[in-house]
């Protein structure tokens, strides 16, 4: 019992690399520390990770499960070596020679109240998109100009880098530990997360509602089997429901002409996260124009 810290030195052989991967990514092995009966706890960095990103943002994230495992492993390796978060980010940024207008700003997760260490678990691995680097942009062109530049030139671009491209430092050893492991390949894709749509920004007022996309379609079809496929049909159905609600509420209070004006000003937009449709990114936006 008690707290403390330990410095871990790792000679990176193929064997030790595999052991680390099993410890921190697949979790098929556990650390055994002499004299300690419980597993040591890991805290990679801050525990107050912001859960929701409500502003437009640019992120670099692994686009496949394999890439995410590689990213998690890279972070675990850096942290095992006592490397600070800022140094990890600098290392990533250093490898991105093409990106001159933006900077890697932070490592973050989308999990509420979740330390990034918890993402190094079996459950965390299956949750795609929960680990990313946030990108900060700014400069003489202003943020909007740079955002346009990034969208035009880099959106959905994949960046492959090797965070440990130098060879292992040669150290004298008394015994042959096997072939040395070098390199720490990483592939990150750049995505633009525009939480506010252009129509929302242009509207007089808007109500943004978070939805579960597949649940929404199922529920809407339950009483409208012939609703039709696609966004347009779904948006039309939702718009009709909102207009009925407004008619019900305002009908007794507004003249027919005014009520009709309100109804005609309304519109519905459904937004989906590019790629994976999930709970946090799919939204219904009720617009008043």
């Amino acid at each position, binding site marked *: 019992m008690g707290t403390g810290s330990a410095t871990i030195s790792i000679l990176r052989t193929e064997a030790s690399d595999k052991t680390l991967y099993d410890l921190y990514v697949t979790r098929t092995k556990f650390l055994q520390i002499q004299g300690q009966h419980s597993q040591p706890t890991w805290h990679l960095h801050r525990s107050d990770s912001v*859960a929701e990103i409500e502003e437009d943002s640019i992120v670099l994230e692994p686009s496949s499960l394999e890439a995410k495992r590689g990213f998690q492993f890279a972070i675990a390796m850096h942290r095992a070596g006592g490397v600070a978060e800022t140094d990890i980010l600098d290392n990533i940024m250093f490898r991105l020679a093409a990106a001159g207008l933006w900077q890697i700003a932070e490592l973050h997760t989308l999990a509420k109240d979740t330390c990034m260490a918890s993402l190094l678990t079996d459950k965390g691995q299956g949750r795609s998109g929960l680990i990313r680097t946030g990108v900060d942009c700014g400069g003489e062109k202003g943020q909007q100009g740079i955002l346009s530049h990034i969208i035009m030139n880099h959106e959905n671009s994949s960046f492959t880098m090797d965070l440990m491209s130098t060879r292992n430092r040669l150290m004298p050893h008394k015994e042959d530990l096997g072939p040395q492991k070098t390199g720490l390949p990483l592939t990150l894709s750049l995505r633009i997360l525009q939480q506010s749509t252009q129509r929302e920004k242009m509207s007089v007022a808007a109500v943004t*509602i978070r939805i579960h996309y597949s649940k929404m379609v199922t529920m809407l079809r339950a009483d409208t089997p012939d609703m039709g496929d696609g966004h347009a049909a779904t948006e039309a159905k939702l718009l009709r429901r909102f207009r009925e609600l407004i008619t019900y509420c*305002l009908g007794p209070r507004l003249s027919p002409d005014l009520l009709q004006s309100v109804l005609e000003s309304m519109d519905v937009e459904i937004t989906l996260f590019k790629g994976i449709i999930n709970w946090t990114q799919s939204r219904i936006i009720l617009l008043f124009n």
Partner: protein
Amino acid sequence: MDLFPLGQVTLWALQIALMIGIRSHKPEEYLLHYCPLTRYETTSSGLSSYQDIPGEACTIVRVTARATGDSSIPHPLLPTAKGSSTGIVTGLDIINDPLAALLFKTLTSRSHGSLMYEQASGGTAVALARIP
């Protein structure tokens, strides 16, 4: 020229957000709940039961309005980093949150009919408020 002032439209948006965000089984508050995914047409005779309020079907992210920057509904309607259940309004919020309480009051200030009548007929007992 706009037919309604910005404040009026924003108020309607806030009231609709409250209707979508509310989660309460108290009868007078339950009647406010509106889910665009499940709510039978408000003018039809389709009825629901108290158990029908979907826990996670819809939650509110924000309300925005032009020219006022982000005119957002404050906590608890808005998701927060450390909130356990965000984007919803509970009966307790109606008591403790001044904005939620005000919105609730205006929504239920229907000048004709009665709450009991509305409840019996299966409709929602709401009326979006107009700014005098």
